[in-house]
Every structure is written in structure tokens, then in C-alpha cells.
């Protein structure tokens, strides 16, 4: 499944945000990236299925792979490039959303915050329906067990996202050091200013 872009084996990268093990609730919250827009488009789009020319007014589009021919987000630069490429188009941005998945769909050794897995669109759709209340907890769990959807840990993407996160921490740290005039005050200083 990993990295293959053939129509039958498209996979979606998701990152574990939190693993819950509270009594009967054994699920992980997972984040995914999407391209989003809240603005009307200015160009007519030809719907590929219905073949109806139309203008889009806002949309959300799930991101599966980096731009170009890359098959994985296996370098921090791929992640930065993605944001920059999307944001070049007026009104578009990369949004983060989440879904819940049962803990048992992940291999236990890698089931932790920050791990990236690739899942099939069928599993994503099921989780999306669950998120939106279309199916119940029981239906969701039961179908996941019955279908036994494969999920694949993606070590390259896990590492790339971790490195990218570290880069953001470094950038934030440098920005902070370079801008002392903007720092929040201590309570004593603030009270002095508010007098």
C-alpha cells in the first residue's frame, strides 16, 4: 500500500494525535491534512464525473501524496513545499482535521502520538461517517473488525514530520530571541504599565 499511487491502492497519510485507553473507549484521534477554501473560485471547473461546468464555492480536498512525483512525505521540505504551493493560490490553505480510529487497527509497537500511518480510503470514509454521527460506535468497531482494513506504519513520513516539527520549534525559538520588544510582560511589569 505504501507509496503506491495506482487508483486501486491510493492511501491516505494520517498522524496519531492521541491514544485513548479509557475503559471501553479504546480509540486514537488521528489528524489529516486537507486543502481547503472558503472563497468562491474565479474559474469554471469541469466536474469530472457529471461533466457539468460550475464554479466552486469553498471545498475540502483530502491530501494523499506530495505534489509532483513524490510518493511519500519523506522529507521535511516536502511538507513545507506543500503548504507554500497551496497557499500560492488565493483563498486556498492547508487545513488540519481529525478522525477517530479503533486502537486495534494500528500495530501496537508504533501506536503512539506522532506516528504516521497510511490507511485506505474505505477506512477513512468509515471513520469520517463515524465522526459525523452517520454510524454508531458499535457499527464502526464491528465493520473495522469484519473488514480488517490494512493500515501501514510509515517510518519515513513519521521521521519527516518529526523533523519538520523540530524545525518549527527552532524557527519559533529564533523568532522569540530576535523580538524581545514583543514578549509578554511579567505580572509586576504589567501592573506597573497599567497604573
Amino acid at each position, binding site marked *: 500500500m505504501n507509496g503506491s499511487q495506482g487508483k486501486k491502492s491510493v492511501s491516505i497519510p494520517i498522524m496519531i494525535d492521541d491514544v485513548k485507553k479509557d475503559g471501553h473507549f479504546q480509540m486514537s484521534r488521528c489528524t489529516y491534512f486537507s486543502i481547503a477554501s472558503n472563497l468562491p473560485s474565479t474559474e469554471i471547473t469541469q466536474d469530472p464525473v457529471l461533466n457539468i461546468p460550475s464554479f466552486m464555492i469553498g471545498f475540502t480536498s483530502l491530501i494523499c501524496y506530495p505534489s509532483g512525483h513524490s510518493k511519500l512525505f519523506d522529507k521535511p521540505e516536502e511538507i513545507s513545499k506543500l503548504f507554500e504551493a497551496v497557499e500560492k493560490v488565493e483563498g486556498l490553505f492547508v487545513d488540519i482535521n*481529525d478522525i477517530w480510529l479503533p486502537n486495534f487497527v494500528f500495530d501496537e509497537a508504533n501506536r503512539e502520538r506522532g506516528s504516521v500511518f497510511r490507511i485506505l480510503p474505505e477506512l477513512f470514509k468509515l471513520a469520517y461517517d463515524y465522526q459525523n454521527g452517520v454510524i454508531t460506535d458499535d457499527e464502526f468497531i464491528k465493520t473495522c473488525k469484519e473488514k480488517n482494513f490494512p493500515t501501514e506504519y510509515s517510518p519515513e513520513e513519521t521521521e519527516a514530520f518529526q523533523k519538520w516539527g523540530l524545525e518549527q520549534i527552532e524557527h519559533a525559538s529564533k523568532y522569540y530571541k530576535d523580538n524581545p520588544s514583543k514578549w509578554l510582560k511579567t505580572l509586576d511589569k504589567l501592573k506597573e504599565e497599567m497604573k
Partner: protein
Amino acid sequence: MSRLKVTLIDVGWGDSILLESEDSQGKFHFALVDSNDNSEMRSSYIFLRRHFEKMGLKIKKENMPFFRFVLLSHAHTDHGRGLESIMREFRTENFIYPKFHKPGILSKLQDFARRYPMYASHFQSVDTMDAIDLGDAVITFLWPKHGDPPMEDTENNNSVVMRLKLGEISFILTGDAEKEVWERIAQEIPDDTRFLKVPHHGSENGTFDGQNPVWLYDCPRSAKLGISSHVTPHPHPHQRVINLFNFHQMEFYRTDINYHLSFETDGQTVSVKYSH
């Protein structure tokens, strides 16, 4: 006369809290804590937009930034998603956040703030050393402690616990801080607390350590409690927590039953309004 109002926005599930303060000159100041908006359901955004419109405030560039600060209480997606969109729409003077073990969604927000200073003029982490004004109200932080390393067990325990003080009254916001945090700071809940947001959506681990309540006995009985419920997919608030509040005859409100909850003070008295 100065006023401070804290509104727990009913966003279906999760936290999103509007802070608004009217100073002695009649000027309004706003801040936002968390959002759980996604691309399809923009509950916080819609609430904010309608609220500002009702106040007669025009959402246009000349009035930006709308927010004195936007705070991510901790680096979990159900508290941070949608914040980028909200900062794009309303802009903020400061984007602030706590220390963290693994950054998760915070990385994306840091990257956004750094690349788009027009939307977030400044960004930094906060701890017990910091303070910020909101009109005549002063905001300080009880947690995380300055100089301590981040908690590694769960990001919930890196949640910002903040005190908003106006006159003789304090309001306390608690993020998703769990029992490990309350064991360390429950005694610091001020005696003048008259509103406290129940930690972690009213989950067991935000209020109990085994059989023992971890913060309730340090919270003045006169304080009103507000719960940002998270009934889907968790069963938050937990029935044990509700039973505890009932047993001690605490006055509490919850977003899954009462919808939007507003707690307001003039620095001496407190009132509560809710939609249902």
C-alpha cells in the same frame, strides 16, 4: 465600569472560549481560547462572526486585529483545529501556547504565525512568568510552571491553567489538565475564584484521583462551574463528576444541556447566562 465576560461556546464537543472585556473607557477587548472547528463545521467561527455583528462591530481590516490574543490551551487537535482559519479571519496581536512534549498541531500553527505576521503579530509560549492584559482584566498563568520540563504522560497535562482577574473576582480556565496537574496546583486556586471551567470536559481524570476529588475542595463553594462537554465520542462529562457536583450542591452548567454559557463579572459580582 469595567466588565469581564467568559463564554464557553457550545461547539458540539470540545472547547472554544471567548473572553471579552469592556474597559473603564467603554472599549472592548477580545481573546479566544481554543477552537474545534473543522472544514465542514465552523461552530466557533460562526458564533464569533454573529457575536461581533450583534455588537455592531464591523469585521474589516481597519478593525483588525480583533483579538488581543488567541491561546491554544494544549497541543491536541480537538483544541487547535480551526484556529488558523480564525486567525486568518479576525487576526490577533498574540498567538500563545504552552510548552509541549510532542508538538502535533502546534507545529502547523507556529509555521503559520511565523510566515504570516499580518495574521498573528507575535507568537510565543507562556508559563507562570508571563502576564497579559485584557482591558482592565489581568491574566496570569498557574500552569505550566516556569523552568519545569514539559509533562510527558499526556499533552493534557501541559494545558495552560489561567487566572483572569478583574477587581475582587477571579475566573479560572483549566484546559484539559488532569489529576497529575491538580495534585501540584489545586492549592493555588485563588480564594476569590467565582467561576472555574471544569477540567478536561468533566472527565474522571480531570476531577478524580481514584476515589478522591483533586481540586474541588480547593475551589470556593461559591464558584460557579462550567463544563465544555465532549459527549462525542467520549462520554464527557462523566456521571461520577456530575454526582460529585450534585452531592456538594455546586452550581454547574454544561454546554451539551445549556448550550452557550456566559459568566460575567464587574469585579464584584458574578452572573451567568445560558441559551437553554
